[in-house]
């Protein structure tokens, strides 16, 4: 019987079985950033251990970098301390650091792929739960804690339990105005925030076959929001075309050999999965979250659920808690909620194609009075290309702020934060209580186009109407 990509990559990286039954798994590529690595380097120093494979760890700085000041020292001394600590740890241990002066710095999950570090058939770990992003290339990529960052630095391995595999088939054509972000919000709404616990998600079907690498990354990125630590797409010509010529991609004869090997990692046609789910792409709507978990989403034409709609007491409690926090009325339409802030960026939607798509539609529109709208490129590379294309001018003309690369308002570790109970239309990945920096701040997750529509109308709106999508069926 055939094997899945997950099994093949796992087997190629399994070193041995540990006493407790876990596998000692080789981590081929280790990505680090300033938040979850300093304590790990400290633990190494405490035990007088060295970084075993320094050429397989790559660093960048993203969470704490301000997006509106570039001169150090930063106004926040804690942020300055963290970037300096990372600089020192990388220098002391011969680790490559894509620092702010390299033109390559950015959100770790955007930097890895664009540098060609992220490759099919590899294992990738990073002290960040959105590491599954790299699974878009057919890698087994997942988030780890700081003690495991230490383990990877010291041994290039971690102790891990093997996962089951659920294949999610999405077939058909997405309606106009429906994007990869809507696909993943739809999947999480369908399978729940803990539906993926214990699973790796294999995303497949004709919709994924047609997706660009950036679209695949958007979906894989949010696997963890559905409970799945790992999410991946089998590598194909789209993958190879994306990687060809990138700085860390193999060159010449090594490239041809690599492509042959990468192809061999794809799931076999006759392999079986622990579970399979089928989704019809044509049924997916622009999706917006109304609550405090990424699973609490509805289509733009739908209403927010009422407490009484939930079947069990614990679900009724969850809906009630979410409605109270969000200051929404159960049963009211999602459309028309007045927003204060619009944020486009993050490791979910901070790539060039996100900005190109938004620029195409916001041209000629203006951000609504009273709305703060910011657009934050995911990396310096993305920023440079976007600026060369003149996208920044389109955004600024429309009333958006165009910022420097970083995690920005996704997670509140830098100056970009909500204030009080501001409501934010956000292209990021988490709508948890307080996630965007204010303990009472409110987040609604949606695609970049839907954020842009909310920005120019001042309220949650159907982007297909706002921007006049030609063949929209609404």
């Amino acid at each position, binding site marked *: 019987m055939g094997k899945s990509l997950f099994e093949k990559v796992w087997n*190629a*990286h399994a070193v041995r079985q540990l006493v407790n039954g876990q596998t000692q798994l*080789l981590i081929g590529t280790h990505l680090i950033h300033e938040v979850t690595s300093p304590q790990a380097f400290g633990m190494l120093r405490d035990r007088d251990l060295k970084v*075993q494979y320094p*050429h397989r760890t790559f660093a960048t700085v993203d969470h704490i970098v301000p997006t509106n000041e570039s001169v150090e020292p930063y106004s926040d001394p804690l942020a300055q301390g963290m970037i300096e600590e990372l600089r020192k740890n990388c220098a002391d241990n011969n680790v490559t650091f894509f620092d702010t002066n390299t033109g390559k710095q950015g959100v770790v999950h955007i930097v890895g792929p664009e540098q060609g570090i992220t490759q099919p058939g590899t294992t990738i770990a990073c*002290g960040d739960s959105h590491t599954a992003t790299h699974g878009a290339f057919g890698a087994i990529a997942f988030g780890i804690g700081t003690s495991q960052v230490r383990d990877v630095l010291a041994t290039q391995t971690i102790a891990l339990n093997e996962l089951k595999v659920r294949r999610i088939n999405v077939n058909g054509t997405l309606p106009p105005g429906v994007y990869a972000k809507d696909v993943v919000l739809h999947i999480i709404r369908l399978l729940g925030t803990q539906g993926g616990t214990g699973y790796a998600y294999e995303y497949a079907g004709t919709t994924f076959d047609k997706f660009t690498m950036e679209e695949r990354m958007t979906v894989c990125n949010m696997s963890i929001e559905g409970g799945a630590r790992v999410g991946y797409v089998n590598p194909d010509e789209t993958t190879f075309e994306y990687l060809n010529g990138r700085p860390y991609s*193999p060159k010449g004869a090594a490239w041809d050999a690599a492509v042959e090997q990468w192809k061999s990692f794809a799931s076999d046609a006759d392999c079986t999965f622990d579970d399979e789910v089928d989704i019809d792409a044509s049924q997916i709507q622009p999706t917006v979250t109304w609550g405090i978990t990424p699973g609490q989403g509805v289509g733009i034409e739908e209403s927010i659920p009422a407490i009484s709609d939930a079947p069990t007491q614990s679900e009724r409690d*969850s809906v009630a808690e979410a409605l109270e926090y969000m200051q929404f009325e159960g049963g009211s339409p999602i459309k028309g909620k007045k927003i204060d802030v619009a944020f486009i960026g993050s490791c979910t939607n901070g790539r060039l194609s996100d900005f190109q798509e938004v620029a195409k539609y916001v041209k000629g529109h203006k951000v609504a009075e009273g709305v703060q709208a910011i657009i934050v490129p995911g990396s310096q590379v993305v920023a440079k290309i976007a600026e060369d294309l003149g996208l920044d001018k389109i955004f600024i003309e429309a009333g958006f702020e165009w910022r420097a690369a970083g995690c920005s308002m996704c997670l509140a570790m830098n100056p970009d934060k909500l204030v009080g109970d501001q409501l934010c239309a956000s292209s990021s990945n988490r709508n948890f209580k307080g996630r965007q920096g204010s303990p009472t701040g409110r987040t609604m997750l949606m695609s970049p186009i839907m954020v842009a529509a909310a920005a120019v109308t001042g309220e949650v709106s159907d982007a297909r109407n706002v921007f006049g999508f030609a063949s929209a069926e609404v």
Partner: protein
Amino acid sequence: MSSTPIKKVTGKGVFVPGDDIDTDRIIPARFMKCITFDGLGEYLFRDVRKTESGEEKKHNLNDPRFAEASILVSGNNFGCGSSREHAPQSILRAGYNAVIAGSFAEIFFGNSTNLGVVCVIASDTDRKIITSEIEKQPELDITIDVENHKIWYGDQSVPCEIKPGARDSLLSGNYDPLDELLVGAGGVSKTAGALPYMQA
């Protein structure tokens, strides 16, 4: 590093109600601007416990009756969200060494186990029994018997689940895997040697 085996955890309990208690709730990201884990205990559940201006909210975690607690009892999907080890570190550093929940998010579970924070699963019904007992008698000792899959409250008990691998690690004191991983170095270079992308 081999540590003391953890066969049982005994302490007083406190109920943190809600499903999907995410790691941003356990420790908001704005308190993670640090290069060590020292002092993180102070920020555990910061926004659950306090208002923006620092006044205490009405919550079990602020209730003096539960001030001695060292075991958290909560809902389903506890620890979802970020992979930040800051979350279990802050739990540990605030004086808690076990969590009883309906289920756990995977990364949080792994991070906690590595630190020796015991995470066990109990059914909705059984957690209700425990939380109502805690509410009635906050001074009641709760004992998680890792070996025998039981949670004792007074002289009564309910069953609990713990993943076999985690259970073995806690019982043997090998929950921090680093020493065992270091021993495997020979095998690592062999596995790495067979993979072209691993070559320098």
